[in-house]
Structures are given as C-alpha cells and as structure tokens.
C-alpha cells in the first residue's frame, strides 16, 4: 500500500478534515485507528503464531466504516463531485479490506493449528466468535480423522493427540514454527536485547532500524508492542 494513502485513511476514518490531502500531521499517524489496524494486520500477517485479538480496535474500525458508508450515501444524494466520492470510496474499500484481511488471517491460523491453539494459552487470544468457530472446527476435524483413520487402528493407538498410549505428552499436534525468521522494526530504542537463553547473542535494537531475527527470541517484544513486524 502506498505510503501516500495514509493521510487519506486518517481523514476518512479518524479526522474531521474536509480535504483529506491537507491532513499531513505526522503525529496523528501513530494514533489513528486505521494506522493501529494496519499495524495489527502487519503483525498478524508476519507472525507465525496467533496474536491477541484487537477487539476494541476492530470494533472501532467497523463503527467508523459504518459512519463512512453513511457519509457516502449522503454524498450520492447531494450530487457531490465524483472525484471526491471516488476518493472516499477508495478509502472505505481499503479500510474494509484491512478489517476483512485481518480477520481472515486469524481464521487461517486457527484452521491450521486448531489442536495446538485449543490446548494451550493461545486459546485466550481468540475473540468469542473465533472461539465458537474453533470449537466447531476441532470437533469436525476430530470426527473426520476418527472416522477415516483412528477407528481403523488397533487399541491403544486411537488417540487424536497422542501417537500411542505410551506417549507421555501430546505428540501428534502440529505446532507453528516459532524458530522462523521475521523482519522487525522497533519504535523506540529497546537497548541491548538478549536473543537466547544463555546470553551469547545480544543485539542492540535501535529505533527505526530493520532487523531479521528469530520470532521466538523477540516474541515478548512483539506481544508488548515494543517491536513491530514488517
């Protein structure tokens, strides 16, 4: 998405400025909902595991989209300039895309790692609706595999979560690959940051520098919002 479009978004979804292109206040960039949503979307897209659901943010964005849709209807009634209408329409479409894509990426992750999510702390990160979806998903997946594979196997080997009764832990569950590398950027200087447990690898995270690091090692920083994935 072109960076120039950011100011259009701001005015359409946050500001009251009549002319979108005059709103070039860089301070507002970090604080408008659409910027926050973009950030949440990027983080979700780049991270291998599911992140906390931004429920307030999504709700606010959807309310603002509805408002904008109302404004669009008014424009149509008032015969406003076509160019202006299409710019607003573009804004609206892009914002809607962000919301949809954000929710969609999460659903894909739930579909993929359903068994892992339902049996770990990740469960708390889902929204109520996502939990309902996840519950149904795991039921039908379990039923399907039960029907096709597990019921045909000998006693003691029929568990969905374990390889056999002799396994101590659940060892049949696909988990996201947290070792994968991600591109990230920190907003403020984090300072010297330890990448591994032993303290052999320390990196000095400078604000606005781009890093390629293992997701696992910066997981905590992503969750606390100190570092953004790009």
């Amino acid at each position, binding site marked *: 998405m072109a960076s120039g479009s950011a100011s259009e978004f701001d005015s359409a979804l946050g500001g009251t400025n009549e002319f979108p292109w005059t709103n070039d206040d860089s301070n507002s960039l970090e604080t408008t909902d659409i910027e926050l949503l973009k950030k949440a979307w990027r983080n979700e897209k780049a991270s291998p595991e599911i992140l906390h659901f931004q429920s307030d943010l999504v709700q606010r964005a959807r309310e603002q989209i509805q408002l904008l849709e109302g404004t669009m209807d008014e424009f149509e009634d008032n015969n406003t300039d076509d160019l202006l209408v299409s710019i607003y329409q573009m804004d609206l479409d892009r914002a809607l895309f962000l919301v949809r*894509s954000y929710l969609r990426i999460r659903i894909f992750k739930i*579909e993929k790692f359903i068994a892992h999510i339902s049996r770990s702390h990740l469960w708390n990160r889902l929204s109520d609706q996502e939990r309902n*979806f996840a519950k149904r998903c795991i039921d039908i*997946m379990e039923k399907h595999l039960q029907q096709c594979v597990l019921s045909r196997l000998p006693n003691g080997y029929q568990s969905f979560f374990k390889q056999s009764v002799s396994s101590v832990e659940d060892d049949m569950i696909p988990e996201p690959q947290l070792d994968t590398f991600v591109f990230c950027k920190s907003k403020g200087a984090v300072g010297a940051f330890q990448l591994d447990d032993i303290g052999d690898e320390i990196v000095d995270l400078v604000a606005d520098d781009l890093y390629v690091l293992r997701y696992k090692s910066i997981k905590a920083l992503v969750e606390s919002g100190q570092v953004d994935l790009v």
Partner: protein
Amino acid sequence: MYGRRASRLLREITCCEPGQITAFNSDTFEQVCNECNEHHQQLLSLIKKIEDEQLDMETTRNEEHYGAVIHHLSLLRNKRCLMAYMYNRAEIIQSMRWKIGPVLPKEIHEKLNYSEEEYFKNHSTAIESYMSELDLDLTVDMIPPKDPYIQVRVLYDIGDVLLGDHSTSLKQNSVHSLRRTDAEKFISQGLMEEFVG
C-alpha cells in the same frame, strides 16, 4: 519393508501442485490400515511370548523385546503417515472453501472420499456461521483493492441492471468499467470475470 506403502501415500501429496488435490487413494490407504493391524497382532504375540516365559516386561531385553519395539515403531510411523495424509488433504479441502466457494465442482467431488465431503460441508457451515456472527462476509475482497473501478468481462447474458443511477445492459462478452462493489456480487456468482487487458 515396513512403512513403505505409507510413505507412498505422502509422496502423492508432495508430488502434487500446492493447493491441488489428487483422488483419494483408497487401495493404498486400506493396505496401510491392514498393515497396522498385522503389526499389532505380531506385537501382541511377542508380548505374550515374553509373558509366557515369565520374564519381567520392564527389564527384559531379548529378541522378543526388540521385535516388539520394531513392530510398535512401525505402527506409529504408519499412523503418522495416515494422519498426515488425511490432515494435509483436509487442509487443501479447507482452502477450497475460500478459493472456490460453498459448492465444489464435480471433478473435485470425485476425488474426495465420503468423510472428506462431509468434512467440507461441516467446515463450510462453520465458516458461514462465524461470518454471520460477525455480520461480515470474509470471502470477498481477497486481494487489496487498487481502484474503486474495475474492468470486467461479462461471461453470461445478465440483461439490464440498475447500477448507481443509470441502467447498464450487461451482454455476454461485453467489457465494462464498474464500481468494484457493484461488480463483486456478479463475479462471486461467476457471471463475470475481472478483465485484465
């Protein structure tokens, strides 16, 4: 060799283009299931032998013990292969709900087994009820919008349609520039396609 048939199943998945599905290989699948049960029979008889000789199960390390271990591990491997086969297919089936829609074309239907068809239906209903809880259709808008207007080619005669404030005649094979939001519903019904010139 133990486990060879099961690996053949998985090779089918990896040889295939990503996102494409092959016909369910019920023959090999059956054979692997039978192999699992044979392993189990062997395993049980070896354990019985150890018990008959009144040896301690935990500490005995004779040929029966190692034979049993091999059968156990082969069984586990077969199970993992069978599960991976079904699971990977299920993932492809899930993705079809997003790419194709709630109704699958006949040629894909033929490649699924009974349980997979049921799985597709159930999964599809789960997605639909999630979307209705949200009151937002997530299956549209799959790529970021670039322009409020797009070029479309009409695939089937649609007739006169009121778009905005003027009516447009949508004849087969004609090309129009429409508002994306207007065109989307026709595209998802398969009545027109995006025209990339």
